[in-house]
């Protein structure tokens, strides 16, 4: 079975086509300015936090900031535009932690630019939902799964696959 990472979960909530392409290693992010900006944000936004937080790897996903004592995951994003997918990604981290035997982990999602903070925890409903996401992702990963169509949403304009998807002739 192919590995499912937090990026898969995030893309599953953004666009199935994006997930399909990403899963087949057709990556575009390396050319995207936005992603480079995101990486820079991690490096510069909270330098003093490096002390308490650790980077950990779980089931193919990398959590950049995890506080093992308080069992808190920290995630920093630059824009609230795709909040739903950010929350989904965090819930997946929490689920992975639970699977690894951590009890009652929680998460904090921060948008430093907008000075917004969101607390995330895992409910029973979430656990059911995550099973459904994983099934959905596996279906898209299947060898014979056709590439989902473009979604034609305003978001496409910012997506690194925009040119790929809409180049036409």
């Amino acid at each position, binding site marked *: 079975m192919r590995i499912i990472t937090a990026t898969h979960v995030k893309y599953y909530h953004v666009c199935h086509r994006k997930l399909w392409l990403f899963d087949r290693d*057709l990556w575009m992010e*390396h050319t995207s300015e936005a992603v480079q900006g995101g990486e820079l944000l991690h490096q510069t936004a909270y330098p003093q936090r490096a002390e308490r937080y650790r980077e950990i790897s779980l089931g193919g996903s990398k959590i950049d900031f995890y506080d093992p004592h308080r069992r808190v995951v920290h995630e920093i994003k630059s824009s609230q535009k795709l909040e739903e997918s950010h929350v989904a990604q965090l819930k997946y981290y929490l689920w992975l932690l639970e699977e690894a035997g951590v009890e009652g982990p929680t998460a904090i999602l921060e948008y430093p630019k907008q000075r917004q903070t969101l607390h995330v925890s895992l409910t029973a409903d979430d656990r059911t939902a995550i099973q459904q996401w994983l099934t959905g992702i596996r279906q898209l990963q299947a060898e014979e799964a056709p590439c989902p169509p473009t979604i034609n949403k305003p978001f496409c304009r910012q997506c690194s696959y925009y*040119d790929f998807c809409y180049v036409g002739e």
Partner: protein
Amino acid sequence: MRKTYYLFNPGRLARKDNTLQYTAYDEDGLPGQVKYLPVEDVADLYVFGSLDANSSLYNFLGKQGISVHFFDYYEHYTGSFMAKEYLLAGKLQVQQTQHYISKPKRMALARKFVEGSAFNLLKNLRYYQGRGRDVAVYIDQIEGYVAALPHAAAVPELMGLEGNIRQTYYAGFDRLVPGDYSFGTRTTQPPQNELNALMSFGNMLCYAACLSQIYHTQLNPTISFLHEPGTRRFSLALDLAEVFKPLLVDRLIFRVLNKKEIQPKDFVQDLGRCVLKEPARKTVVRVFEERLKETIQHRSLKRSVSYQHLIKLECYKLTKHLMQLEEYKPFKAWW
């Protein structure tokens, strides 16, 4: 935006922290002027003059994803230092190989490249026809060959038609450039007159530009469809260049000759071959680079894109074809 850098003069390239330090050698081979290039500005390097460098430089370039392409004195492409192929995608590789192995699949793609090329070179002839140059006979003749494309049963036949199209096109070319020049016949090995020398140099730049773009996608540059893989190491770039040469190279030739930016004195005969002198080479590179940066309004993307980006888009279209998302339609100049 990262840029392509061309190194014409002999010199030494070294790593200096996070910059590249280039020391040009003067006529006596002594170190002269020093220049610094921040690596984040560099997309790739094209080396024409002799270059001294050591492995720590190449390790550094490799880590930064910067490739180096080498050309000999006669401007022939001789090889590349390619940064680790960080973008290869397994499923795409398999598909690309299958499209080469399967004869109908390969033919379908190969035919598209010739179609695209023919469409774009006819566009050039029609442009001049509209300006009162009489090239109608050539246009008719080429259209005849294009009509035969769907009936070609195998790649060599397709290559034959492609050859006929080019030969006819070059005959028309003679009417579009000043009287000092004439193709005679197209000679590549070696180019024997000015027009041939200019075309060889331009085609080489186009090939290199295609290679750079392919390298920034996940396509494997060694597996091609129209050209036999191995014709040159990165033969997929030859396939793509076919489509872009009429716009990137041929129009450049019309321009530099008609505007007299290049003149007969800019060439030298050397051991039975004709080559461009160095200042003229720089002129051609400059015009070519300007051309790559020039933008046009893209029809479906609804924004302006550069010619260079058009090559990348072509790689995306090819990827989509190979992954069976959308049939490849070659780029056809729409303006």
